[in-house]
């Protein structure tokens, strides 16, 4: 038991690597703050284009969506990070993670917004047009506001999943929370930094996960 505590709960040793892990935590937080809103915006643009674009645009967006939904985000990151530089296109680690996860997350958000928009009855479009609003105005002022509410549960769930996915940064050696915990482990010779990183993720995401599950259960029961 003592050996367990000395290895896994050696919080004294973590104090020595606190600056390292603090920097990692900041990077992770920055990734989340940049990636989640950007991906949401991309998703919204894709969903709007699907409403207003011609047939070709719509097909392109379906291809885009299916492509990024099929492609594991980690493979995308590795491809951007180590495949593109040979063609002369070089991203640094931060840009790689942001580009990869925004492209990936945008596809998922796009699908969710599209589902929300399509759930708004056709009559709302007709009524808006009858009032003399232009199509874009109908979309922005009538349809879009109504489309968000039914898709709040999947939106929330996707926000959490995307925020969690920023931990993939470790795979392209961006010094985020997980990477710095690994480095810290090699400095203090015990796995407590990894345990601490795990605990930080747990404490941060637990309330959000709980919220998502409440939202999902409630919305499913309401639909029956």
């Amino acid at each position, binding site marked *: 038991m003592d050996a367990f505590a000395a290895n896994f709960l050696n919080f004294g040793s973590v104090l020595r690597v606190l600056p390292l892990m603090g920097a990692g935590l900041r990077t992770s937080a920055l990734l989340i703050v940049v990636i989640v809103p950007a991906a949401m915006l991309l998703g919204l643009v894709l969903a709007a284009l699907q409403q207003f674009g011609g047939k070709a645009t719509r097909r392109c967006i379906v291809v885009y969506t299916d492509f990024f939904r099929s492609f594991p985000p980690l493979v995308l990151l590795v491809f951007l990070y180590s495949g593109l530089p040979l063609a002369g296109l070089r991203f640094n680690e931060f840009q790689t993670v942001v580009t990869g996860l925004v492209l990936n997350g945008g596809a998922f958000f796009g699908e969710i917004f599209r589902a929300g928009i399509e759930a708004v009855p056709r009559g709302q479009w007709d009524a808006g047009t009858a009032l003399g609003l232009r199509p874009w105005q109908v979309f922005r002022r009538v349809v879009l506001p109504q489309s968000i509410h039914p898709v709040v549960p999947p939106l929330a769930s996707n926000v959490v999943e995307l925020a969690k996915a920023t931990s993939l940064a470790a795979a392209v050696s961006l010094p985020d929370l997980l990477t710095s915990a690994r480095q810290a482990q090699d400095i203090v010779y015990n796995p407590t930094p990894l345990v601490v990183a795990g605990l930080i993720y747990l404490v941060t995401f637990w309330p959000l*996960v709980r919220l998502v599950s409440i939202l999902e*259960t409630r919305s499913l029961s309401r639909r029956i």
Partner: protein
Amino acid sequence: MGDILHLYFNLGYWWDSAPALLRGAGRTLELAAATLIFGLSCGLAMAVTRALRIAPLSVVIVMMVDAARAVPGIVVIFLLYFALPYADIRLPAFVCAVLALASNLAAVSEEAFWAGIQAVPRGQSEAARALGLSRLVILRRIIMPQGIRLGIPLLTGKAISITKDTALASVVAVPELLNQMSTEQGVYANPSPLMLGAIMFLLIFLPVVRGSRWLERRFQWAR
């Protein structure tokens, strides 16, 4: 243009790296199969246990599920692979990856099945009780078949995401597809194997994604 062809679509390198990549794809499929089998069966078992409404068991299940959903898979893999050896528990990388991904999938599917079970209208079990059926029979013949059906549309997207996460196993050097892609790229100093591997990933998962659209529509229509 010739450059792009030489860099990414170099058929010579494709041909040479294909055996290794196919072996990797096989490993990816093994990981995915193990994750799906363990994850879905554990998830279903937990949802059924929770439906028995034994308070202490339910609390334990909810806590496990929440924890597994809150911590990213890659963090769990790192903990199992890099931290557990300090407790003299050395698991093969493949096992670490499957454990991490399956626990994640089990949590997600428990949530989905449980949401489905709860969504079955109360009147169903009341009617069954009025017919004199026992609690277990009601659960097995009335609640579960409907609950699982209702839960499936919630589950497909997430199950696919987690199955795609088998690529995470590459960070602990399981020789699955992504790992082989990187290795082969290093061998030939050319990203053509990376491109070929990416195409293989698409070939594996594109049908799954398209199929899930169909599945979701089907179950929606069934209601």
